[in-house]
């Protein structure tokens, strides 16, 4: 039972690695953790394109916040 569990974890790890590689190839600038979260979201039924839009929105937000912060200082 435990060996099967470890197998599952192992293969999940492999899958994540592969996805991360692809992500690197496509130059998405996601780190492993975020990628794992996103994959989890997708697995749970979120529309992938919408999710991509969310990521971009958040990035944009972060950039504007940084700029604002810089201006405030």
């Amino acid at each position: 039972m435990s060996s099967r569990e470890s197998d599952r974890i192992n293969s999940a790890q492999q899958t994540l690695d592969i996805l991360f590689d692809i992500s690197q190839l496509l130059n998405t600038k996601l780190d492993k953790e975020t990628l794992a979260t996103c994959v989890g979201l997708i697995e749970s039924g979120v529309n992938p394109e919408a999710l991509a839009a969310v990521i971009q929105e958040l990035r944009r937000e972060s950039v504007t916040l940084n700029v604002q912060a810089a201006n405030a200082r």
Partner: protein
Amino acid sequence: MPDLSASLDSLVSALVPQARTDNALNAELLAHCQDILNSHIGQNNDADIGHLADLVKRHLLQTSPTGVTALKFTNLLSRLLDQPVLSKKHASILFLHSLASAPRHPTVTPTFLPSLAPPPPRPASTVPSAADPPPAHQPYGKSKAEKLREYRQKSGQPHLPEYLLLRDTLYLLQGISGKYIRLSVSNDDPEQNKLVFVEDSKHIIAGPTKVLIHRLSEVGHLYTRVEAFVRDREAKPGVGMIEQSLCHHLQAQLTEYYRLVAVLESQMSGPPHSGGHKDGNGGEGNVRGGEETGLTLKRLDVWINEWRLRMRMMSVCVEGARDAQGGALVNLIHGYTDNGDPFVRKFTDQLLEEVSKPFFATLHKWLFSGELYDPYSEFFVSLDPELAHVQYVHPSSLAGGIGHLSADGGFAGLGADNDDISGDREGGLRLWEAKYQFQKEMLPMFVGEAFGRKIFSTGKSLNFIRYSCHDSDWVATREKMSNTGGSLKYSDISGLERSIDTAYQTASQRLFEVFIEKFKLLDHLRALKHYLMLGHGDFADQLMETLGPSLSRPANTLYRHNLTATLETAIRSSNAQNDPPDVLRRLDARMLEYSHGEIGWDVFTLEYKVDAPIDTVLDPESMIKYQKLFNHLWKLRRVEGALSAGWMKVAGGSRTFLRLPDLESDWHQIRIVMAEMVHFIRQMQAYCQLEVIECSWKILIDFLDKKEGDLDAMIGAHSSYLDRMVKKVLLLSPKAGREENLLVQVRDLFSTILQFRDAMDNFYNYCLSESARRDQGRDVDRGVFTGLDQNTDNQQLRDALPRIRRMIKEYGSSFSERAQVIVHGLQSHTDLDCRFLGIRLSFSDFYKSKKEQQAQQQRS
């Protein structure tokens, strides 16, 4: 969904570090994210991993064209697909892809997404008819074209619906004005047809559509031209056969064209909606509906495209047919077969096959039966209208005359109707040469000029055999035989060439046979050689002997019947009597026109009469040449005869009974000069007979034995034979203006010899009477009285002696001088044979050394 919000929360805090501390911001972002996730983005994407992989790969190739990354991706993807964990691999990849492609177009994405996002607000309201608005178009909203159309409708100038234009265009294709598009015909120049678009206030016709209609209407314009041409030719009488068949072919093509137009018309379905098409929306609907099955202007353009080319070709032919005719027209069309476009080539080939049919029919008739059936003079052989009905008429005397060549009537009869015959046969060679003319510009190019000549000659030969040689049976048989061999066609050029070759060979072979066997050309030629060129020595001698005395009399005392009688005697007493009567019958003796003071020798001539069809070869001009030759040879013969008679006297008499020792040296001188003369004349004669006449004869006979070539070749061979003889026998030099220099000198020489001969005769007579006187003296001495003593005569004779001696000396030296000049002239003659004659005449440099001697004497 707690899981979802928790994950989102971690995402937000991972990506926006500020949100970890700022709760309000965190909440706002979360809400915003939720909004986005609930939106419609990417709703209608189907899960096709292959397509997606392609998209990704294309994207990767764009970023790094080497393909290494694409390959890597393929590897990774296949490994990923092996993994059992994820259930939505496709979605993951899609997520990564959209994330990857997004930052590349940071400006496009924001505008693109919102433009997709708002649902089209008014589709239902703008399409009131909306019978079948395809749902696929719905989400895109209105295209720009639709917007434009709406705008136009609002501004009150909608486009004319296409189906109306289409109908008009179909009319235009048939050269008819439509309702909205008219053909304006200006009266001055029918070529200047213009399209007029009728635009009322309600509708306009768009520019691109106009251009398209202009393109289409070109076909209509060409059609009108071709059609007008065909109608025109139909109505006109006397249209050439080739043109007729061109019209036929064009008509067939036009029928095809009508068929196409009819099909197109049936394809053009009427307006699908009976109601409301006036306001322009119905037209639109028609276009929509027609997109699947119906006809549009653009489709029409595609359909018509092939016909545009065809119409152009036809129109070009029609243009050409205006000023070309017959074979030239065929040539014109043939000029287009070398086109690189296979379509054009095929079309022209077809056209030519049709058009050349009458040409080949004419050719067949011409080639196999020698008849020219060409009512519109389109063939490359043309008939001289003046000679069209002239045919050889066999003199009726020929048929009857051969049978009963009676001794009394034969020559006289021919002599009597001599003038009629010569008037009649004037057209002999002319008929052959001029009855049919070769028209080079009418010769179709695919035949080639060499073959054209062959065809021409074949037909001419057949025609000649048929009408001039009265051998139509043979021609008719041949025609029947040839009919089985299949017809002549444009597409079978090699077969055509073969049949031309065989026809040519048979025709010319037959012509040779007819000439040589039926009309005995060879016999006639031989007779000319024997009689007119004195080939029969015994005959010539006989004639000379019997005619000689009478020819010495003045010309005006000679009578023709005497001459003909003498001629007959000569024939009967010589070997010539064995010749066929048909040949002898033609031989005639006559006198040339004489002037005062001429004697019989100057005007006597032999004549050989020929009639049709032999006079094609032996035309009057060559007969004149033969007579020239005869005159010269006859003179030569006369001189020779005179010389040999004189020599007999000198050699015989002077030694036997003219025993006058004191005149022995004179006789010796005479013998020396005479030997010189005899040598000269003998060489001359040998040269003429052996080196010129016989050699030329051999060439001619070789040619005739080969039996190659046509009648033209035969005429050519004969005339070259004759010319060669004339040139060499008469020693004509090619220098202009001085052709007959040598001939004149030779004639002078002849007369010198004859004068010398006279002087010698005088001397002989003197010697004779002198020796008689001395014999008488001796008789008196012996006491025998033999006659009266004629002292006075003797005195006169004795006075005459120095004069006679002077004459002999004078003529002798004059002969030597002339001979020397002639030899000198011959040595620089351009003709090799003549130069050899010079060498033979002064063999061992006789004359030259004499000249040198003179030079030496002068020096010393």
